[in-house]
């Protein structure tokens, strides 16, 4: 039966590659639809092409809606989208090149735009990454060295906090805001600090020293922070810093590069460039649990990872050469292709809504 399904899915895969818009669903897809309703893919777009976009793929109908944002709002998303948060019914998108944040209500289909501009200098702040706090506030890192706090209900900026240089990933834990100050625009003299700011007082509590060019930060169930420093892409290698979120002390440093990460609880899926696989790092035990969850030799340029543990599906974004349209593939843990569909340029975030 498995072989039959495999044959059918390969047949459908061939058909898939010929079609432009509508995707035919292979049989194996049935078990994805047990849990997943819609897949949303954020396509970064190419710089100064104004072609950032949102793709929506509906599992049960197996249909794609390209330019979903334009379909809902009647206007384009903008230039270079960098982050996406899905918190049903809301979808938040950071559009870096256009200096805007968009809020989409997936139930009412309303879209609202917020400009991220420093009104004193009239310069866009170059917004980068979002974090949604459990009290309903959005924290937004901006490359001009600030973090904006945005109230999700009114969708207005309530606070502007000064942090380090060119902040990227950020997180709020224990009423403290931690930002990765990459200093990327000062290349090759990167920054190497984490700003610690009290979210209630908006005062600086501490500055933690880590490796150069920190970009991503994760929290485990025991209150430990994991900071990925990317090094300088030359002689200084990437490193993972493990920090106690109460004492702010660096307790361990591991020579690891957890690139294109996707976190679910204490599981962190990432791309292992040495082995060309999707690997799993366990944040609780602070070690690699499985360095070959899925082998992906056929992916030319991996741009996104997403995982649905319930249906045991791994989604990967294929960016090809960064200027043509990308593609998203869904695989079982055994490497069997369950679905695939075309996206816009550089599919960088894959999120999905569930049936419950």
């Amino acid at each position: 039966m498995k072989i039959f399904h495999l044959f059918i899915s390969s047949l459908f895969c061939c058909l898939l590659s010929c079609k432009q818009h509508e995707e035919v669903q292979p049989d194996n897809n049935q078990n994805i639809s047990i849990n997943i309703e819609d897949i949303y893919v954020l396509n970064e777009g190419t710089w100064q092409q104004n072609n950032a976009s949102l793709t929506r793929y509906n599992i049960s109908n197996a249909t794609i809606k390209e330019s979903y944002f334009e379909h809902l709002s009647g206007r384009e998303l903008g230039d270079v989208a960098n982050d996406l948060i899905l918190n049903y019914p809301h979808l938040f998108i950071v559009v870096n090149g256009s200096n805007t944040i968009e809020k989409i209500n997936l139930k009412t289909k309303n879209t609202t735009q917020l400009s991220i501009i420093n009104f004193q200098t009239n310069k866009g702040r170059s917004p980068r990454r979002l974090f949604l706090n459990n009290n309903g506030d959005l924290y937004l890192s901006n490359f001009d060295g600030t973090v904006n706090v945005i109230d999700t209900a009114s969708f207005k900026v309530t606070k502007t906090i000064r942090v380090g240089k060119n902040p990227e990933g950020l997180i709020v834990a224990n009423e403290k805001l931690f930002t990765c100050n990459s200093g990327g625009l000062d290349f090759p003299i990167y920054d190497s600090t984490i700003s610690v700011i009290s979210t209630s007082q908006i005062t600086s509590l501490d500055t933690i020293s880590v490796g150069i060019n920190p970009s991503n930060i994760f929290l485990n169930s025991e209150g430990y922070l994991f900071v990925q420093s990317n090094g300088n892409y030359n002689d200084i290698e990437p490193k993972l810093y493990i920090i106690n979120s109460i004492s702010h002390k660096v307790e361990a440093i591991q020579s690891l590069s957890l690139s294109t990460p996707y976190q679910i609880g204490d599981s962190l899926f990432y791309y292992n460039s040495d082995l060309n696989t999707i690997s799993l790092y366990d944040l609780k035990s602070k070690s690699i649990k499985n360095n070959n969850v899925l082998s992906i030799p056929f992916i030319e340029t991996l741009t996104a990872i997403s995982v649905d543990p319930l249906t045991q599906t791994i989604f990967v974004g294929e960016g090809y050469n960064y200027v043509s349209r990308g593609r998203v593939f869904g695989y079982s843990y055994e490497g069997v292709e369950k679905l695939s569909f075309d996206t816009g340029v550089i599919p960088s975030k894959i999120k999905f809504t569930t049936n419950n």
Partner: protein
Amino acid sequence: MHKILLYTFVFLNAYILSAQVDSVISIQPVTIEKVSSTIIPKNEYDLQKEVFVNTPSQNVAEASSWTPGIYLKDYGGIGGLKTISSKGLSSNYTGVFLNGTKVENTLSTQIDLGKFDLIGCSEVSITQNTSKELLKPASFYISPTNVVINMKPIDSNFVNLGLKTGSFGLINPSLSAATNLNSKNSLFFNSSYTTANGKYPFQYNNGTETLNETREGADVKRFNTYIDHVYTINESIELNTQIRTNYNNQGLPGAVVLYNPTSRQSLKSSDLQGSTNLINTKNKLKWRTGFNYSQSSLSYLDTSYFNTIGYLQQDYNQYSYTSSNSISYKILPKTTLTSAVDYSLSLLRKDKTINRKNTNIHIGIEQKIKSLNIKAFYLNQNISDNNEDNSSYSNSSKSGGVSVKYYPFTTSPLKLYGNIGKYIRNPNFQELYYLRVLGDLKPENTSSYNLGINYFRINKQKNISWSVDIKYFNNSVRDKIISTPSQNLFIWSIQNLGKVDIQGFESIVSISIKLDSSFSIYYSNSYTYQQALDKTSSSNREYENQIAYTPFDISKHILMLKHKKSVLTLSSMYNGIRYSLGENIEANLLNGWWVNNISIGQIIPIKESDLTIQFQLNNFFDKQYQIIKNFPMPGRHWYLTTSLKI
């Protein structure tokens, strides 16, 4: 972050580092008495001064765009970067020669042709493989297309004061003069100053909405001078010295990015170029030997850059020394041998210094056999770079070609012609040293051939002449240098992977009618159809798609009516659809466009002088269009040029 930095690098280097300096100066009006009232094109590629003066051609880039098959890439407005290309090939395959000296750039090969103003230009010609220019330097044979610009004075003794004003807040006074200092010395001088705010209204679409905006941050200040001195040593030898300076300070408006406040980038540059040549064009053995020095400093500033100092400033200084020697020897009545050797040393200084030594050796032969004319050329290019302690490129290559012209009937001006050639394009500093490169780069190579028919006729009364030229062309680019991403966004792989197959056809029709001694009509039209397909890899989405920014068709019309001292010109340019990226999908589609212009000029003699007034209304249907995606071009705009020639 890294992607922004990378794109900034790539975009900056392409956009700015080709010395994005422009010059806008008043166009020297034509003296109608000096030129015969019928305009007979010398060959299909010569853009006679009268034609380009009366089309919207501020500078060499725009002027060249009126010749057949040339495609202009323009970033818009007075200051926008302008480069040209031909027959589906990139602008790296177009050489630019200013009074015999090759003008180019080790950083990005292509240069901004918007920089070369039209004051004093008596001739702009676009040549394919062959050119009527004598004693061409060896570097001429590197590219299949060469733009040859000759800035010669329109008269031997004159002073011309000009003032051009118009849209964009333009004020452009100019002064040019020529004089024979004595029987052996003549001097020609040009200068122009330009100031403009560069503003223009434009429209763009966002989803279902059409928005109106004004192009801001595009102000320009420019000052150009040019001096040309000829010293006649004896009846066959002359010494020619030229000095050109160019100063430019302009805002760069950047792409129209949705919802984004205006960008704050600016560019400052200053250039100095001097050359001296000893030429003998009279004897059986003709020769030319010369030396050229040029320096260029470029400073780019972005005040919206979020590093510690709060701005990004990139300064580039380039210096180049070239020695160029050519000979032409008519060994037999029907046989001419040519040879040329160039040697150049170019330095680029930005943080570190990189230098390139370049030796080009050319040998050629021209043979006439009855009604057949055969030319063959051979070129050897030797390049050796020195990149301080890092990897340095070096290469030695051989290339060449043959062109044939045949008049099958002795009683008829019908001409059949064909060219075949191979061209080698070496990588520039940007490709080799300014992005992270994995692996060694080789030069690109292009094999091209074309076949054509040309017919030209003048009637018995010599008052009507017309010509038709139709050709088929084919270019194959191999080892094309393309950059592909690796998993690490900050390290791109630059390799010789690309392949492009180009073919097309081109037709040129022109007619010239002299109705009586005071009234004449000239019309010319060219149409080019080109298919340029990406053949890099069948697993790419771009495979067999039309490559980016290559319109499927281009056409140009010029209609000129002359009556005594008045000239009325209607000109139209058409670019067909093209794609902004390599994938031919609707998201990347750029619409085709027609732009129409009208120009009226009148010469009013005042005693011994001539006052010329010319009014141009360009894009009179106010067509909203873009050549480069998100860089809107000006809609309707006008210029008024007044000049007094004494």
